[in-house]
């Protein structure tokens, strides 16, 4: 299947993403969901603001998915990232990988989220009780 890539201001829909990659050939589905945490670096976080360079983020995510497919032979993948203001507990990113066996799905999912975080132009600003700052690395 063609991978699903979503960049959206709307709340992410985990169930729809899981349904989209499901298939009778699938024996395992791994879901990674990144959610907004209420603390960071000793600060009390109020909310996060995500910003994305959409025209570049799409092809970058496509590239990461292609690489994961090549390495682990998985081809049922969905990647969704939200941007704009996100409240504590809301999902900022969801990666879903489905494959006949679980090992490949775990590996591919971990590779996708780790690579996405370092190469896809999406930034987050932490708005804490005592100020705000763009988070770097």
């Amino acid at each position, binding site marked *: 299947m063609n991978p699903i890539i979503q960049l959206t201001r709307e709340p992410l829909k985990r169930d729809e993403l899981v349904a989209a990659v499901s298939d009778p050939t699938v024996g395992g589905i791994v879901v990674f969901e*990144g959610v907004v945490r209420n603390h960071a670096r000793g600060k009390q976080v109020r909310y996060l603001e995500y*910003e994305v*360079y959409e*025209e*570049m983020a799409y*092809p970058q995510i496509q590239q990461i998915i292609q690489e994961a497919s090549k390495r682990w032979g998985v081809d049922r993948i969905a990647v969704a990232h939200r941007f704009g203001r996100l409240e504590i507990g809301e999902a900022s990113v969801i990666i879903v990988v489905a494959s006949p066996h679980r090992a490949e799905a775990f590996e591919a999912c*971990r590779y996708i*989220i*780790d690579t996405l*975080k*370092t*190469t*896809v*132009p*999406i*930034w*987050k*600003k932490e708005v804490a009780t005592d100020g705000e700052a*763009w*988070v*770097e*690395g």
Partner: protein
Amino acid sequence: MKIRIRYFASLREVTGQNEETLTVPEGSTIANIRTLLLDHYPPLRPILERCLCAVNRAYVQPETELHEGDELVFIPPMGGGQPRRKHV
């Protein structure tokens, strides 16, 4: 020649705009534009020192030469979280 430069995250806040079109000499490199930006916006220095660069939506090296109509973006570090250490 004209190039389009787009600003995101901390760069957008410091420059106070989403993008601008610059007229620069033929053969200008990204490094030249960086110098130009530091003249216009001195507070960008600590940010630009940590930026990667992208031309037409792909990562490139700072010595890359620009062409008419190119879209240049300085990419500040992303909030990468804490991935695992490399393992074999």
